[in-house]
């Protein structure tokens, strides 16, 4: 296992005949470090360059510019088989003509490992993945989740694996088995301490799997941190909206005197915040998470009144969409607070829970 580092990676699929200024970059100026033995996620919307990054790490793709380091050695020019980076694909990739055991033994046998040692390794990994009972079964007879486990098994059975890449591994798994396999992945990572990089567009999968999440948009890294950091302190409004369900409420506002003026209402701010904001300018974006909005049935202090338009009940809490003329926000309301569609509620935006963005960057 080793640390994987991407240094200033650029990649374009345009041929070199396209003039430099017209090239479309799938990945540009990417610097990411995945520390040794860590559980990482690469999170981003579809088409953001995730798969390109993955293929650059595994060696299936040569970056147009930049370096890939595994451990302390530069592996940029190495072929996939020389890099010892394993990969689990979106849909289960198994060798149909082999049984479960032979599938897992395949990478070891390719390394000409002596058979008793192959046997020991395969049994050890099968135990961890709970595949021991079906080792002799034809691999085609299994469900997608078990097949995906075999894929994972093949990638972790090798001693010399530097890192395991998981490319949206739960896409084709039955919802019932999804949770199971997700837990298993996490468990295997924690137990074997292998560097794993989980690529997904699903924030739930990324946040539950990884300790370190890198968010990528348009081929650029926009923030890297623990799930908690990303949730509480998103670097840009995009991350605020992308992480969390439902996403962060984002409202344009202008600072005037001691008030933040929104399109349809205004709220007072303290002297401290005002000073901070004044040093930047006067147009901002305010972000507040639905669960941070304090909702009450009666006005209090400087609450703002909203009309309730939609209530979505999840059981443990309600997600309420509220409107005030053209402004629309979502708030998470505990089950015991009474609200009804068409009624009025009062909302407060606690200053310590508010994020303020200037020029697409978080300043508070």
């Amino acid at each position, binding site marked *: 296992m080793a640390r994987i580092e991407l240094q200033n990676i650029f990649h374009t699929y345009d041929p070199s005949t396209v003039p430099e200024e017209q090239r479309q970059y799938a990945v540009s100026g990417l610097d990411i470090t995945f520390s040794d033995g860590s559980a990482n996620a690469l999170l981003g919307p579809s088409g953001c360059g995730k798969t390109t990054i993955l293929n650059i790490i*595994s060696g*299936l793709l040569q970056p147009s510019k930049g370096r890939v380091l595994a451990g302390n050695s530069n592996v940029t020019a190495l*072929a*996939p*088989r020389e890099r010892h*980076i*394993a*990969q689990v*694909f*979106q*849909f289960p*990739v198994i*060798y*149909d*003509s*082999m*049984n479960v*055991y*032979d599938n897992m033994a*395949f*990478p070891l046998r*390719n*390394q000409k490992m002596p058979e008793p040692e192959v046997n020991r390794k395969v049994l050890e990994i099968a135990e961890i993945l709970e595949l021991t009972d079906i080792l*002799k079964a*034809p*691999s*085609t007879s299994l469900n997608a989740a078990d097949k995906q486990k075999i*894929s994972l098994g*093949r*990638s972790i059975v090798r001693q010399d694996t530097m890192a395991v890449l998981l490319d949206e591994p739960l896409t084709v798994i039955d919802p019932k088995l999804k949770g199971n396999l997700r837990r298993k992945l996490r468990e295997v990572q924690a137990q074997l301490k292998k560097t794993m990089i989980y690529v997904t567009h699903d924030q739930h999968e990324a946040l539950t799997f990884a300790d370190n999440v890198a968010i990528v948009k348009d081929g650029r890294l926009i923030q890297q941190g623990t799930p908690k950091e990303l949730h509480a302190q998103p670097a840009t409004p995009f991350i605020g909206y992308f992480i969390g369900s439902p996403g962060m409420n984002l409202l344009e506002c202008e600072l005037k005197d001691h008030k933040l003026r929104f399109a349809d209402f205004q709220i007072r701010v303290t002297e401290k915040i005002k000073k901070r904001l004044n040093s930047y300018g006067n147009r901002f974006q305010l972000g507040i998470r639905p669960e941070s909005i304090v909702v009450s049935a009666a006005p209090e202090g400087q609450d703002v009144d909203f009309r309730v338009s939609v209530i979505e009940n999840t059981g443990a809490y309600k997600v309420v969409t509220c409107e005030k003329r053209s402004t629309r926000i979502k708030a998470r309301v505990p089950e015991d607070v009474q609200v009804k569609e068409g009624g009025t509620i009062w909302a407060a935006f606690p200053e310590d829970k508010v994020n303020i963005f200037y020029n697409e960057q978080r300043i508070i």
Partner: protein
Amino acid sequence: MKNRGWLFLIPAIAILAISAFIPLMTVINYSLHYIFAGSDPTFVGFENYIEVLRDPAFLKALGRQLIFSTMILVVEIPLGIAIALAMPKRGIGATISLVLLGIPLLIPFNVVGIIARVLTHSSVGLIPGFFALFNYNFNVALDPLDAYMTIFILDVWHWTPLVALLCYAGRQAIPDAFYQAAQIDGASAWKTFRYVTLPKLRSVLIIGFLLRFMDSFKIYAEPLLLTGGGPGDATTFLSLHVARKAESYQLGYAGASSAIYLFIVIVFSYIFFQLMTNIGKGENQ
């Protein structure tokens, strides 16, 4: 009857009856009678069958046929796979190869036979002319081996493209991830072929194998046009043998040998199908 859905089956049943069932029953009916022009057929039971199975000419034609079909399968299937894997996967090269492969398939059997006849003509043909350079007297009308090999090579040229096209289509349907996984797992080129390509081509190969077996077992136009089954009976394959008997009004014999012929094709096809569907599925490892 409430459910009139079965009415929709009538056209299909009618076509099947006209194209297969009625001719087949006619043949079987013939095979159980002694038929001679001008007199009424006499029922003779299985006598015709016994006569066919004891006829050295039939047995020799059958042996020739089995050897021929075996050679066809042994050469055309691996060659077809090799061509398919060597073909470019996209771009102009892929289009050109597909067109080139398609050309032989568009030429009718009898035209192929005539082309062969012109090419091998002892005085004006290109092939005898070519062999003359090496002082070899190539003559399909006189040398049994020359005639046999000409038909064999003709069939390989004519039908290997079918196997290649089937495999090409099958190869295109294999997701890249399988090859990437094999690469990451450190598999050699041979192992990648053995464990990724070949198992994934299984279903198209079953079709290709069965089609080539059944078609080669029925070969008729090429030997007929090239040498009429000669020299001697060197290229008298099963179909030619049966047709000759029918042409000489031995309808009982022809019927019985046709039935045996059909039975052999069905039995072999069934065995091949079973073997190929179950082979290497990983159960017994």
